């Protein structure tokens, strides 16, 4: 159990690191939200450990790292975490592609929340490029599941 918890916090830290690593210009807007994807994966596979508090905290740390309005990403992560919690019994049954489709919907919702709050706080950026992470994240989902499965198996 402890190893499992450690794994969650480490992967959160890794996701946050990857969220701020400088990327070459063309790759920058495509950057998938790895911290969010990891959170979804852990809520799906072990909802008993990775709860809403975990989701909320990762979002809050992302806010601080990016220097955004405090609570913006926290709310996004929280909403996605809550929905995943409610859907997890169904989602776990789905084949991987259907899962990826639902993940895409969740990511779209997350980016809509971020976009909406950006607009409310006066930072609105409306180019279509900002929706690219939704697609890249959904495409990456099978890989996340594969890596996550192999990691959790090893930690047993």
């Amino acid at each position, binding site marked *: 159990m402890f190893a499992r918890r450690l794994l969650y916090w480490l992967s959160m*830290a890794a996701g*946050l*690191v990857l969220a*701020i*690593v*400088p*990327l070459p210009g063309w790759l*920058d*807007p495509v*950057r998938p939200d790895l911290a969010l994807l990891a959170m979804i994966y852990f809520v799906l596979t072990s*909802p*008993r450990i990775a*709860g*809403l*508090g975990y989701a*909320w905290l990762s*979002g*809050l*740390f992302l806010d*601080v*790292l*990016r*220097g*955004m*309005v*405090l*609570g*913006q990403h*926290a*709310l996004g992560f*929280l*909403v996605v975490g*809550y929905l995943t*919690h*409610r*859907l*997890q*019994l169904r989602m776990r049954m789905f084949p991987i592609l259907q899962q990826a489709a639902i993940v895409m919907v969740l990511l779209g919702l997350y980016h809509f929340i971020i976009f909406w*709050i950006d607009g409310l*706080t*006066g*930072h609105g*950026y409306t*180019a279509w*490029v*900002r929706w690219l992470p939704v697609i890249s994240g959904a495409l990456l989902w099978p890989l996340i599941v594969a890596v996550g499965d192999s990691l959790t198996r090893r930690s047993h």
Partner: protein
Amino acid sequence: MVELTHDSRPIIGRGPPLTAYFLTLAAISIGLMVADQRYQQIDRIREFLSAAVLPVQRAVDFPFRATNWVTTSFADRGRLREENLELTARLRLANLQLQRFAALEDENRRLRDMRANTVGVAEKVLVASILNVDLDPFRHRVLLDKGAVDGVFRGQAVLDGEGIFGQVTKVNAATSEVILISDAEHAIPVQSNRSGVRTIAVGAGDINKLSLPFLTVESDIQENDLLLSTGMGGVFPPGYPVAQVSKVKRAGSTFALVEARPTAKLDRAREVLLVWFKALPVAAEPAAPVPEPGQETATPAPTASAAPSRSPRATTEAPRPVAAAPETPAPPVESGE
């Protein structure tokens, strides 16, 4: 009673119901956001949290710094010699120019002393390096490795070797966030070095471009004009290069389409300078991100003592025949003083 629910946390020690938990955290997030927009006290929390994430930022920055260190320490002799020669040549040239500037600076200081006005001269600078951390692909912000402990304050001007770089927007304990002049939310009052036309340069969200939206078609502005900071607004020290006009298109009926290229190396600089200077004694005006009324065509500014950066007032106002066309219908933005 056993109930089949989506809540598959352990029954014992499960904590509050999921939905209640969700709503509480959501309310906290919204409260945080509102507080962040309205109240300053929230900066304490942010400062505390940013101290917690500092190791993450350092960890991200480290490999870049290390590679840089390795490449510079193992540079081969030939390249060092070449670099040395080039630097010597540049130093010679710079020294030559300095000789001229020394006299000019003396003269300038004497004139300023005469007017008991030493405003706008950078008093103190602090070198800060930019952390290799990506904040947001759509906003031009960078993180510096100097913060409140070094005396950095909100709204402080940031320069690099070539010109004005940006200003500090957030101060944490050991780091600070800087908005670049090219950010779409930033605007800076500028003045053309050649004609003395004053206007506002607004960031365009493109690292190589500033746009000057408040210039009329009659304005005396040309390509390659150097735009200097005016020091109005009290954020930036006056007289430092901001951008060079790269494109002038006089197509429309009222406003010309003018673009300028920032002189500072916004995307390549590693080290920047934080500047302390005596601000202008103008009315307390908020920081430059709010476009201020520019006065390139209207009457001479009442606070004009502040603006002339290179020469006494009389000469800056004289050579503006085209700019000062009084018939020009002043755009609404500028009419408010």
